């Protein structure tokens, strides 16, 4: 037991020390990623990098909270330091509850299989060019996988999030959205597809169609209700993170595909939704249009990184809901103690009239994913939270595969506007209106490109 060697506050002191240093590796007892990279085992266990107090919620809370418990207003004081301020407020005052599970020690459960392989294969090869974009050693676009699995500074942490949003080269998330008003009623409900196709930074090391000037295609199309059915957008992201994506849209009113300006990134996509384009993955805008990136802290957090967030076996993978005035404001979420998180702050320096003053993202160093993000308004008041739930798509009822292995992805998101009292929550379902089904693999990348990522595709999807 490492705690015999290191006292209970060792990790806290270690995190403080690393935060003061600025540049530091993940891991408390040893550096996490060199250890993982050296491992020739099929099992990538992080246990040796952290003391038990960071891997066991029971030990961390000195027995007050243990796996299987439910965090409520009655016991949240024991984990208050492990929640972002808005989640804490939700538990304290809005009836939110959070289920607690064992921490995941096996990294393979925190990544898509191919993304982890590419991360390990390409570890140490990424660097920034003079313009601030991530490059392979030969100056080409990034090779695939996480470019900086052990980020040494804030820019590297930010690049990890923006270069491969969903960690899958192709994914189509059939998404069902509910927008809850201040009274707890469902004010709006939408079905939409969120699809990502990596052009570069692909796990297979290929550059799709040779377009090394592009990073990804990102298409979104709404299928319900009738007044937005057919509304479709295609964002073409440039690899150069100082350039805005190109935006094509099909609006049913125009009956054709048109080009639209793309700098409207701080407003809802559709009425009632709290989500802004800018919010996505805490990296919804090209990285170099934001600035003042800084790591302000390293600390453990509670994050929804647990397989319990996959609703296999439930109808359409629908997430149970609870809390709020009408008992339907929050997803049922399963959180675990994430042993080490980077607290990354950044500001929208390229958007002089953005309503956001600052974004704080808590990034789990195990997979470099944001587990919570909170924005403040320009007055400095805490405004919105973006809280994703991730999981390997496998439980005792069902396993959803990608290339023969359990898929891994986000399963849901809650976005809460605490100043307006409105919640947007959506989950990845098996299928939504229009017959669109969630998928993480394809036998033919050109086929999904033709079907979903062209102006012609928008025309067909829009009608």
């Amino acid at each position, binding site marked *: 037991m490492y705690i015999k060697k290191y006292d209970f506050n060792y990790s806290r002191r270690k995190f403080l020390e690393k935060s003061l240093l600025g540049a530091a590796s993940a891991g408390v007892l040893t550096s996490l990623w060199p250890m993982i990279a050296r491992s020739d085992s099929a099992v990538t266990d992080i246990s040796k990098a952290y003391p038990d107090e960071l891997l066991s919620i029971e030990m961390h809370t000195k027995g007050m909270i243990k796996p299987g418990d439910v965090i409520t207003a009655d016991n949240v004081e024991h984990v208050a330091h492990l929640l972002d301020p808005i989640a804490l407020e939700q538990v304290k005052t809005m009836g939110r509850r959070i289920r607690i599970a064992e921490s995941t020690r096996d990294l393979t459960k925190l990544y898509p299989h191919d993304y982890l392989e590419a991360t390990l294969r390409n570890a140490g090869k990424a660097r920034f060019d003079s313009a601030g974009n991530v490059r392979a050693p030969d100056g080409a676009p990034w090779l695939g996988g996480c470019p900086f699995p052990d980020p040494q500074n804030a820019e590297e942490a930010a690049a990890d999030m923006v270069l491969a949003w969903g960690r899958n080269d192709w994914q189509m998330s059939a998404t069902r959205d509910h*927008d809850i*008003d201040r009274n707890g009623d*469902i*004010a*709006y409900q939408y*079905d939409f597809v969120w699809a990502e196709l990596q052009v570069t930074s692909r796990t297979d090391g290929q550059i799709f169609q040779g377009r090394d000037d592009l990073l990804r295609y990102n298409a979104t199309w709404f*299928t*319900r*209700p*009738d*007044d937005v*059915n057919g509304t479709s957008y295609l964002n073409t992201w440039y690899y150069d993170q100082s*350039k*805005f994506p*190109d935006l094509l849209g099909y609006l*049913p*009113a*125009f*009956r*054709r595909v*048109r*080009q*639209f*300006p*793309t*700098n*409207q990134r*701080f*407003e*809802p996509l*559709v*009425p*009632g*939704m709290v989500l802004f384009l800018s919010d996505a993955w805490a990296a919804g805008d090209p990285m170099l*249009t934001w600035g003042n990136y800084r790591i302000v802290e390293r600390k453990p957090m509670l994050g929804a990184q647990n397989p319990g967030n996959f609703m296999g076996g439930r109808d359409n993978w629908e997430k149970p809901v609870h809390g709020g005035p009408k008992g339907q404001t929050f997803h049922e979420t399963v959180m675990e103690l994430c042993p080490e998180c980077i607290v990354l702050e950044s500001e929208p320096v*390229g*958007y*002089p*009239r*953005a*309503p956001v003053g600052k974004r704080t993202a808590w990034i789990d160093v195990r997979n470099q994913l944001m587990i919570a993000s909170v924005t403040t*308004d*320009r007055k400095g008041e805490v405004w919105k939270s973006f809280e994703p739930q991730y999981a390997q798509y496998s439980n005792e009822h069902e396993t959803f595969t990608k290339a023969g292995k359990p898929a891994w992805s986000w399963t849901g998101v809650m976005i809460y506007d605490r100043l*307006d009292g*409105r919640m947007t929550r959506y989950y990845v379902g098996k299928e939504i*209106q*229009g*017959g669109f089904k969630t998928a993480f693999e394809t036998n033919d990348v*050109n*086929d999904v490109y*033709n*079907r979903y990522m*062209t*102006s*012609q*595709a928008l*025309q*067909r999807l829009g*009608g």
Partner: protein
Amino acid sequence: MVAFSKTRLMKLGLPVGLLVSGTAQAGGAFFDPDVFGASYGGFVRFESAVRTTSDENPYNQAGNPFNNIDVQRNPIGGTPDTVRRLVPSESNDFNMNIMRGKFDVDLRLGSKLSFRGELRAIFDFDTYNNHDIGSIPGAAPAGDLHQNVNYFDYRVNGSGGLQSRKAPMAMEWTGEKYMIDLPRFYFDYQDGALLVRAGNQQIAWGQSLFFRVMDVPNGLDLRRHSVLDFVPEEFSDKRVPSPAIRAQYMVGGWELDGFVQHFRPTIYGNPDTPYNTITSQFTIHDMYGDYDDKANFGVRVRGDVGAFTVQAMATSRYNPDGTFRWTESGVSKSLTGLPGDATADLMATTAFERDSTGVLSAREWFHYAGLARLDGIDGLNAAIAEFPGAQALGAYLVDNEFDAGQELDLFFSSAGGLRGHLAREYHRESVFGLGFGYTFNGEPGSFLDQLIANVEIQYANDRTFTNPSLSREHIVEDEVITSLVLEKNHRFSREFPATYFVFQWMHRTESDFFGRHLSGMGGTEDRSAQNARTPGSANYVAVALQQPSPTLKWRFDFSMLYDMEGAMLLQPAVRWRPGGPWGVEAFFNHIIEDGFTSRSENYNALSTAGWADEFTLRVSYSF
């Protein structure tokens, strides 16, 4: 939209699938029970347009400003002649009250094949006050559309004669107060980079909004709410759907797009319906029956060249607007209606029909020639020179307004009212287009930040226009139409989402916004268009902006169209999405006919709808 369960829909899907698979089974890629699925949705919507002025539509019988007033005609043999048009004028509170329903169904038939259908149903509550043809002395006009006000039938000449054939070759079913049609009813087949869409469909091209420079494949259906609908919806409810096969192919970042389409014309509002724009003293012989076997063709290519987006198109089409010319009325009514008058057969060979719902004075003739952008003198001469019957009745050619007035009043005095008969015909034309787009990337927050500029140019070779004389010798000229579109989002405050701006300018070398040749502009009661200094080109400026509320629950729109001949259309609007199935739009149309120049309102295009100030409310329930 609501999803059907697979099992429930197998009953529907199997027959559909068998039908499809029975007709085309290539590669086994068509109907696939494992892929089959369906969903449906739609809305019902009440739409009401409330008039905000006392102006009535002058193109309708009940809105004719000459009704029930004494009009001095030219003296006959020195005797003063006063006439009174005996059609009652009406005062309307509403232009429109309709209930609209839309029902959509999507079927997934296989991995490559899908079907989409949209049924549109409209019922008009007939709250628009109109004339009662039976109560007007001397009124018995030929043509079904002039005897009974009919909101929705599209009638053309057929074997049964004038206006005897209804909606040829169209997927629509209409009656006096209702219409049901299928604006979308097509199959999509996608295989790799190829998308083929076959069925009844609209095809829209181009970046310009409302200015139809590249948007040439479809005509417009101006029944329902004409062009006075909610501006942000552009022409989505107006383009005339047509059976077509459209194929799109992506290659190397370029989109190739081509179509073959059954030709369907623009459909104008019927006589005496609220938004009618063809003066009701005319009787139209729509000759579409001679063209309903014609096809339009078009190709377009779009892609990027460096930082520019480029598109080019070429089409061979029948101009859907058609042209109008005098035609023999075929109505055997004598000139005077007096016993012993044997001119009935002769009158049938002229372009006129004696009827009290026609024109009764030279003043009315020239007044309406101005409104219709026609030439009062040439119009008279063409109706004489091209019709021996008119000459046989003693009609003679004239040189000026005075002589024309003398002759017209002589005939009007004899007849007590004459209706003019026009043939509507269609002409093939080749239309070419070129477009360039560029996105500026200025300093964040600056004017040039994400400003999108597009220039579109249309060149029509040998376009045929209605001659302002209504002669069968149409005007045939090449026309160039150019538009500049600037659009951007600009955020003015941190509290409100970005405001969306569109600025557009359009230049037309030969015709106005509605396709009327510019040589017909400027006529008045006192002056024929040939003596007006008609404009050499037409220019329009449009500005539109949208400002959503922070939650997008509300959106405020403002649209302005300025005709540089001195008229303006203003439409402030608000859209409300309170959540749930309800939606509300409200907008106000205000048209300033002649407020910006000293020239007559007949020089500009917008005054054609100058009477139509109204407030419209739409309340919808989606399912």
